[in-house]
């Protein structure tokens, strides 16, 4: 196969050489230690920390962000080729041929994620102080959130696949704990289990991939694996790529492991904002971009990633159109946007940077959207049905404005973020060429149109139109502790995309790590214009359907597509039929076999023994004469046997 696509300033397949950290960056372990300490204090301290626990919970991400900013500043002072630094906290596994250090790698890719996680995370923590103020378990909530931060930072900072996996599992655990935070609600408990199990299926893929790496290359560190990959066979590289893709599907809720994301909205809204919008679900994209040297060598794995991304972006968009629950509609949107990122990542070096750019921008605007939804929900007595909203713009102006800016960003209106980050992806898909490129690009375009439609629907149903409120709802604006993070995020939603894409800033920054596209297009391309046209069409359609007509309070039956979309495009039904029922039959078969077969065997032996002894004991008649008779018969037999031998 032809070699990887390289550009003049791109990296060798082994990645840029990693140097040891100096100066401030030497304390990179603080990034992990601070949130971990916060979690430990809050969870182990118990009810004693209830009164001041939330302050500790907020302080830790803020301190981590401050440190991350300092480390970033130090990184900028280095020349481009020397920006990848590593520190080794300690040697985790020190067996003869299996060496795994607990190392943290600070390079351009990981610092982007660190800033996103700690920055957006701090804002969401501040929001949660207000959102969870009425909840008596607020301290435990912050404990779990800090735990999540620590695990997520380990995931993005790890210098080897095993550390990444440790962080991977940690965020899965934190997600389970946080989705099921209100344990007394059965729906929440079930949703937490569902999320964990779906993640587990993906984790199998990731762990098998790591095992395959070790079996083939003898190492799991990034530098080791990336330098050994070029010498591996095509089949092995493709297999590793596909296994990593499976892991990414689980964590990022891509088809076929997407069923858990919508149910995960049972958790508190800050959880949905942080974990299921900005950070955890993007871990899959991080994995694929980090493993670029592997994917660069296998076109089959790349096309699989791209197809998964394209299918999911349409899938999520269709689901988002029919959901009346505002959080579930936003969750469908998240699924769809991550599909865009995966599609970009599947295009190879032509799309890695754009995937990360869209990821960073998405972190801002999706978190902002979720926080807005949380604010609305908080004010409307925990109501989430959009058919019960309406006309909230007047009552909650700040929420309306911040939500509106996030809305404009996500649908791709220039000059907001989405326009700058989504169009290069569509463009790069078309630039791939051939039928695959055309199909992928078309799917992305259509997805953009549907995105405009459903987001406008959400906007209209929630904020404009008639007031369809429940009895006893008195919404007013949220307290400042909740609105300030929303304002900051709105600024980010507006500006982040332009900041990253214009002047090729992110491209120049990340290029040494991910590689750059072979050709760079400008802002206004054919596909960009097409996307804008579809955008207008989508907005107009939504305005006609929801803005002009009255929104019914009870959901109408709708077309077959609507019915299917309400049922998550039968994702749950497929999982049940394909996996759950056969599993149950297998269990029943095993139980049957155990009861009848094995128990039957044992019981038959026992019964046979009992039965035969019951019959044999009748020989003991008690009569001396019958005993004498048996003696005689025995003696005759003995003498006969003796004679037979001797004669």
């Amino acid at each position: 196969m032809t070699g990887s696509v390289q550009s003049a300033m791109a990296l060798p397949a082994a990645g840029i050489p990693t140097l040891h950290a100096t100066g401030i960056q030497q304390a990179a372990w603080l990034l992990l230690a601070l949130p971990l300490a916060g979690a430990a204090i809050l969870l182990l301290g118990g009810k004693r920390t209830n009164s001041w626990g939330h302050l500790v919970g907020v302080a830790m991400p803020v301190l981590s962000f401050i440190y991350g900013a300092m480390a970033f500043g130090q990184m900028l002072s280095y020349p481009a080729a020397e920006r990848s630094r590593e520190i080794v906290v300690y040697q985790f596994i020190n067996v003869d041929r299996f060496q795994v250090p607990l190392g943290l790698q600070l390079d351009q890719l990981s610092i982007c994620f660190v800033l996103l996680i700690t920055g957006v995370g701090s804002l969401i923590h501040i929001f949660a102080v207000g959102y969870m103020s009425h909840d008596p378990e607020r301290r435990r909530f912050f404990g779990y959130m800090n735990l999540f931060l620590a695990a997520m930072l380990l995931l993005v900072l790890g210098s080897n696949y095993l550390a990444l996996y440790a962080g991977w599992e940690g965020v899965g655990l934190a997600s389970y704990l946080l989705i099921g935070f209100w344990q007394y609600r059965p729906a929440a408990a079930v949703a937490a289990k569902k999320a964990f199990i779906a993640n587990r299926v993906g984790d199998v893929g990731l762990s098998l991939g790591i095992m395959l790496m070790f079996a083939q290359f003898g190492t799991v560190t990034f530098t080791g694996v990336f330098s050994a990959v070029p010498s591996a066979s095509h089949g092995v590289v493709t297999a590793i790529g596909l296994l990593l893709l499976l892991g990414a599907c689980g964590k990022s809720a891509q088809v076929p492991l997407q069923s858990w994301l919508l149910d995960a909205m049972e958790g508190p809204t800050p959880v949905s904002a942080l974990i299921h919008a900005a950070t955890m679900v993007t871990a899959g994209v991080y994995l694929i971009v980090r493993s670029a040297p592997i994917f660069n060598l296998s076109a089959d794995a790349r096309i699989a990633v791209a197809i998964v991304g394209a299918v999911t972006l349409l899938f999520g968009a269709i689901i988002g159109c029919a959901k009346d629950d505002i959080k579930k509609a936003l969750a469908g949107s998240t699924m769809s946007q991550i599909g865009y990122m995966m599609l970009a990542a599947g295009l190879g070096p032509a799309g890695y940077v754009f995937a990360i750019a869209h990821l960073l921008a998405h972190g801002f605007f999706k978190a902002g959207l979720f926080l807005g939804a949380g604010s609305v929900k908080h004010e409307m007595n925990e109501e989430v049905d959009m058919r019960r909203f309406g006309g909230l713009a007047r009552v909650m102006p700040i929420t309306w404005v911040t939500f509106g800016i996030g809305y404009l960003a996500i649908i791709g209106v220039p000059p907001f973020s989405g326009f700058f980050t989504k169009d290069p992806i569509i463009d790069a898909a078309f630039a791939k060429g051939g039928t695959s490129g055309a199909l992928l690009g078309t799917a992305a375009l259509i997805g953009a149109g549907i995105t405009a439609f459903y987001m406008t629907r959400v906007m209209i149903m929630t904020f404009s139109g008639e007031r369809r409120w429940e009895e006893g709802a008195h919404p007013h604006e949220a307290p400042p502790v909740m609105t300030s993070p929303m304002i900051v995020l709105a600024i980010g939603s507006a500006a982040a995309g332009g900041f990253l894409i214009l002047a090729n800033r992110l491209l120049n920054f990340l290029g040494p790590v991910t590689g750059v596209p072979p050709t760079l297009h400008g802002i206004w391309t054919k596909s960009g214009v097409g996307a804008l046209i579809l955008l207008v069409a989508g907005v107009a359609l939504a305005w006609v359907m929801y803005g002009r007509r009255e929104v019914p309070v009870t959901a109408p039956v709708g077309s077959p597509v609507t019915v299917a979309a309400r049922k998550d495009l039968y994702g749950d039904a497929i999982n049940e039929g394909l996996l759950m029922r056969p599993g149950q039959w297998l269990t029943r078969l095993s139980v049957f076999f155990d009861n009848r077969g094995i128990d039957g065997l044992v019981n038959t032996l026992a019964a046979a023994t009992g039965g035969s002894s019951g019959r044999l004991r009748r020989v003991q008649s008690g009569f001396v004469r019958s005993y004498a008779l048996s003696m005689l018969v025995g003696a005759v037999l003995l003498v006969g046997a003796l004679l037979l031998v001797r004669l």
Partner: protein
Amino acid sequence: MVSPAHFIALSVILFVIGTVGVLVRRNAIVVFMSVELMLNAANLAFVTFARMHNALDGQVIAFFVMVVAAAEVVVGLAILTSIFRARRSASVDDANLMKY
């Protein structure tokens, strides 16, 4: 010409008759007497063997058998008497407490 084989044959027949008596009769004393018959048959065989091998050891053994048989009869009949006193029955079939 009476060879020792005849005596052995007679001994065998008497022995088998005694066996049948032990198995078939129910009166304890008659069973005892059948056992005595078997012992006598064995004695006859021993004496015949003594004659065959031209050694008196067989006769000594027969003598000891007689002595021991006498002692055995004494004790056996004493047991029988005490059983009879307790149960008023001399049938061997009545002593079947070892039944399952």
